[in-house]
C-alpha cells in the first residue's frame, strides 16, 4: 500500500545552517503519526515545508502519489493538506463562523461561489453544523479575539477540517491546555481521525501522543533519530540521549569536542 504522505530526504538550510537534514518518513491513509523532539529539532519547519511556506533545499514531498514539492502553498489545502498553527492564527476581526467558512475557501472555486452572499448559503449552514457538532455553537457569532484559548484552539482545528482534508497537520494542539482540556482535545482529535482523516501531530504532551498516535517519528537537531511504535520510544537509546543527555558524561564531552 502506498503512503498518503511521503517525504523523502527532506532538507532545509537557512544560510548554511541545516535546520532539517535528510528526513524521510511516510504517513498512511487514515493513520495517526506523532512528530516529537526537543525544542528546535525542526518539527515546525517540517510542517512549513509540507505546507509550502518555505521552499525545500533538497528532497521531495509526495502526497497521494503526486509530487507536491514545488506546488504553490495556497494550492496545497485544495489537494487535502490542512494544518493548525503553534500560536493560534485565527483571523481576529472575523467571527467564529466566518473563520470556519474561510476553511472552505479551497472548495469554493469559481465566480459564483465568490460572489454569492454567504448569509443563508449552504456554506454557512455547513459551517454552523460543524461548529454545533463539536459543541461550539454558542460561540459562532462571537469575534475570535474575545474567546478563551482552549476554544480558539478547537476552532482552528474545525477551520482546517472544513477544507475536507485527507491529512491534518497539528502543531502542538495541547500546548497551553490544562489536563481536562487536553483530555477533551484527545477525544475531539480521535473523533476527527475516526472520519478517516490522517493526523500528523507535533506534540510535547506524551500522554496525548501515546493516547492518540500508535507511531511516532523523533527528530533531534534536524535529523530523524527514531521511527517506530510510540510504545517503545522511551526505551530507545538515541531518544533518551536526545532528551536527557548521554549516560556517560565523559563521553558526552569528548563527543562535543569532536
Amino acid at each position: 500500500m502506498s503512503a498518503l504522505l511521503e517525504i523523502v530526504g527532506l532538507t532545509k538550510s537557512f544560510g548554511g545552517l541545516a535546520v532539517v537534514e535528510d528526513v524521510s518518513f511516510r504517513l498512511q491513509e487514515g493513520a495517526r503519526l506523532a512528530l516529537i523532539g526537543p525544542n528546535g529539532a525542526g518539527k515546525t519547519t517540517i510542517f512549513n515545508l509540507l505546507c509550502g511556506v518555505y521552499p525545500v533545499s533538497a528532497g521531495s514531498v509526495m502526497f497521494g502519489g503526486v509530487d507536491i514539492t514545488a506546488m504553490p502553498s495556497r494550492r496545497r489545502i485544495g489537494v487535502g493538506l490542512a494544518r493548525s498553527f503553534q500560536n493560534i492564527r485565527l483571523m481576529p476581526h472575523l467571527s467564529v463562523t466566518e473563520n470556519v467558512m474561510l476553511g472552505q475557501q479551497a472548495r469554493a472555486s469559481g465566480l459564483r461561489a465568490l460572489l454569492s452572499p454567504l448569509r443563508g448559503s449552504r456554506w454557512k449552514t455547513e459551517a454552523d453544523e460543524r461548529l454545533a457538532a463539536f459543541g461550539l455553537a454558542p460561540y459562532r457569532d462571537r469575534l475570535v479575539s474575545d474567546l478563551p484559548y482552549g476554544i480558539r484552539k478547537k476552532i482552528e482545528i474545525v477551520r482546517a477540517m472544513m477544507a475536507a482534508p485527507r491529512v491534518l497537520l497539528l502543531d502542538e494542539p495541547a500546548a497551553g491546555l490544562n489536563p481536562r482540556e487536553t483530555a477533551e482535545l484527545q477525544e475531539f482529535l480521535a473523533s476527527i481521525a475516526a472520519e478517516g482523516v490522517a493526523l500528523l501531530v507535533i506534540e510535547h504532551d506524551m500522554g496525548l501522543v501515546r493516547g492518540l498516535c500508535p507511531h511516532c517519528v523523533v527528530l533531534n537537531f534536524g535529523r530523524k533519530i527514531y521511527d517506530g511504535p510510540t510504545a517503545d520510544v522511551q526505551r530507545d537509546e538515541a531518544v533518551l540521549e536526545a532528551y536527557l543527555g548521554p549516560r556517560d558524561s565523559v563521553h558526552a564531552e569528548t563527543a562535543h569536542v569532536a
Partner: protein
Amino acid sequence: MSGYLNGLLSLLCIDVMFAYGVFLPVMAGQLNLGGAGFQALGGYVAAYLAANYGTPIWMTLPLGSLAGALAGVLISLPLARVRGVYLVLATIAFGQVVTGLILASPTLGGAQGIPVPSFVGLPVILPFTIIVILACFYLCATRLGLAMRAVHDDEAVADLMGVSARAIQVISYAVGGAIVGLSGALYAHQFGFVEAQDFDETLSVYVLLYVLLGGVQTAWGPLVGTACFVLIPEALRNLLPKLSALIAQTLHLPIGDAKIDDSWRLVLLGAFTVAMMIWRPQGIVTRTLIERLAHPFGAARQRRAA
C-alpha cells in the same frame, strides 16, 4: 432645496463614493494614499471627452470609471511587492505622478484645467451613490469580501487557506479604482471644471482619514466617516464664529484679533483626529457596535451566558 444644500449633498455623495473606493483596498489590508490620483484620472477622462468630442454623459461616466479600474489593475501589480510604509509611499507617488503628468500635458490644459460643458446634478449623483453603497455592502457579505478581510488580518494564513492574496489585491484595487474613477467623472460634470490642483495629496489624506476614522471593520465605516467629516466641519463654518462670540460675550472678553473664525474648524478636526487615534483607533463604527445596535438585548444576554 437651496442651491447651497444641493451642492453640499452632491459633494458629500461624491466623497462617499470616493471613500468606498479607497475602503475596498483598505479592507484587504492595502492602505491607499493615492486616491486623488484615481479621481483625477476619472475626472480628466470625463472632462477631456466631454470638452473635446462632446461625448455624452452616459459614456463619459463609464469611461471615467473604466480609467480608474485600469489604473487600479496596473498599480496593484507592482504594489503587491511592497509592504507597510513602502506601500503607502508608493501610492502617494502614484497620486503625484498623475497630477504631475496632467500639469505637464498641454493637451490636458496643464495648470489651467479643462472646463466641462455638460452638467450632472444631484438627481444623477445620488442614485449612483446609493448603487455604490449597496454594492459595497453586498461585496462585504460575499465570500470575496470574506477573503478580502482574511488577507487584511493575516495574509500568510489566508494563503494557506487557499486565498490568492495577489488576486484579492488586484481585484480590490480594480473595483476601488472603478468607484473612485466614477466619483471623479461625476465631480467633473458636477463642478463643471477640472484642474490638477483639485486632486492633490491633501484630498487623498482626507478621504483615507474619513475611511479610517469611520472604521474599516464594516461597510458602514466609509459612509459614517465621510458624513461626519464633511458635514460637521461644514456646520462649524457658521457655528464656530457664533459660538466664540457667545463665549466671549458671557465671559466679558474683548473680541479682538484673536476672534475664532471658521478656519479654526480644521484645527478642531486635527485635534479630533488625534483624539480618535488615542481612544478609538478602530474607528467610529466597529463590528461590535453594529451587533449591539442590531441586537440591543441579545448581545448582552450572550455575554452574560459566556
